């Protein structure tokens, strides 16, 4: 089985561009990725593309072939939908196809247009990742769902809003110099605590923004990289995926995310590493509490210990395991379908020494990306390693 290398990456600025179409965003990101890879467009054998709310935001389904057009490639093109984990799943399927010899070069990415829907419209569009009969009809939405988990966590393990605020502060700090980030400004713990409530105990600064953007990368086999002389120092060495019941109320746990644990265990076994070997991670912090649940489910912290990690400096850039050096979804932004690929791109640039925050992890060789859909009813985990 061949290894899988990241040959080129592309990333639009993440932010509010309500006038830009999804197709324009993906054209930019995919063009940059293909150009950086140095691969001829005719050599790309497939497009795996993640998108969640295209029907609602742009009246546009069937985005696979559309985005192949925008990328200028003639190859089988498929859209993957798995809520906020859409492009994480696309990456996983691309990795499997390269490994099993189906293709030597695959374009994988995602895009989302969201801000043209407005806050209420985007909140509704996101909410359809929940159970329509038993959650949406009760008035639940995603801020509400994560707030339900946050309150349950506080009741079971302790911790408070101030602990969560330190996560938001950390991730904004990390995004300051990230040119792709939606928010390149620092915030304070007081800012977070005094922000208007969205779904108590979560406030506005506990939540990621609504974002437009796209990301893309070209994955190639080891053999292809060597044959073509492609400079691709970072490999995807582990992939895993997990699912859980769609409705939060139907889960075994309200304060744990077993789908992430399952995905991580599969990815760790696949890469032949353990969580203690991960030196830097990008995790799905759509809300501050989501980062807590992620770092615990991935095995970086015991259950009940993740809440204090940012406050204690363990997940800051100087800490034991820096989390979300890109700024995370919280500050970099969360264009849903683009997020999974974006996390892997940020991580590959961090490991390759090409990221503005690479100096925080100068010797890191192993990184992990965690991408979650819905209230973590879908999760992908990928392990990245610098080739020896």
């Amino acid at each position, binding site marked *: 089985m061949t290894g899988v290398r990241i040959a080129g990456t592309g990333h639009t600025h993440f932010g509010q561009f309500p006038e830009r179409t999804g197709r324009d965003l993906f054209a930019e990101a995919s063009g940059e990725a293909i150009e950086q890879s140095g691969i001829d467009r005719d050599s790309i054998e497939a497009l795996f593309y993640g998108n969640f709310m295209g029907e609602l935001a742009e009246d546009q389904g069937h985005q696979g072939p559309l985005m192949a057009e925008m990328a200028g490639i003639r190859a089988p093109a498929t859209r993957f939908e798995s809520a906020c984990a859409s492009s994480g799943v696309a990456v996983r399927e691309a990795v499997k196809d390269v490994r099993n010899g189906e293709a030597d070069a695959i374009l994988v990415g995602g895009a989302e247009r969201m801000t043209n829907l407005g806050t*209420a419209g985007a909140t509704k569009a996101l*909410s359809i990742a929940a159970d329509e009969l038993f959650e949406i*009809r009760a*008035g639940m939405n995603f801020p509400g769902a994560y707030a339900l988990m946050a309150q*349950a966590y506080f009741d079971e393990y302790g911790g408070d809003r101030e602990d969560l605020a330190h996560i938001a502060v950390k991730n904004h700090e990390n995004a300051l110099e990230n040119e792709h980030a939606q928010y390149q400004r620092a915030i304070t713990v007081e800012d977070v605590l005094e922000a208007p409530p*969205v779904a108590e105990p979560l406030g506005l600064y506990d939540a990621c923004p609504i974002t437009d953007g796209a990301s893309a990368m070209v994955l190639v086999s080891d053999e292809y990289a060597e044959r073509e002389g492609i400079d691709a120092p970072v490999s995807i060495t582990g992939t895993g995926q997990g699912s859980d019941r769609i409705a939060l109320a139907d889960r075994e746990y*309200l304060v744990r995310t077993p789908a992430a644990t399952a995905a991580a265990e599969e990815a760790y076994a696949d890469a032949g590493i353990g969580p203690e070997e991960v030196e830097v991670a990008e995790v799905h912090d759509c809300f501050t509490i989501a980062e807590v649940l992620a770092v615990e489910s991935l095995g970086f912290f015991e259950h009940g210990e993740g809440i204090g990690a940012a406050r204690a400096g363990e997940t800051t850039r100087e800490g034991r395991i820096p989390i979300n050096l890109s700024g995370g979804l919280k500050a970099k932004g969360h264009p849903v379908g683009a997020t999974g690929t974006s996390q892997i791109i940020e991580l590959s640039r961090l490991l390759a020494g090409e990221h503005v925050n690479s100096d925080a992890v100068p010797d890191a060789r192993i990184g992990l990306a965690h991408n979650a859909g819905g209230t973590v009813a879908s999760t992908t985990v990928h392990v990245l390693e610098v080739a020896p």
Partner: protein
Amino acid sequence: MSEQRDEGYDEWIAAIDRGEGYALECPNGHGSLPPRRLCPECGDPDLEEQPLPDSGTLDTYTRIHVATPEFVDDAPYTVAIVDFGITRLTGQLRGVEEPEAGIRVDVGVEERETEDEPLLVFRPA
């Protein structure tokens, strides 16, 4: 909201409204909510309706301020998850000033704040 009939769910919400709420149970003791053709935990197709207990325990709750367009005029309102033993339910919590995990509540069907739409509502038992 939806004007279409939702087979299985509509009958279930009507039963809750009559005070005859139920959940589905498989031979292995797994609880779930309709519509189902088999148990989501073990795949057993032999599902029986079991009455919901008279009251449940509040597991978690949130006061939602930023709502979807359908609920924006109702906000703020409190959504809760309540454990009835055989299954958990998600609904809105009314009649409680300061909720606390562990309190006992009943379930019923009431109207939305702003629209004549059935809504699962928990109130103190």
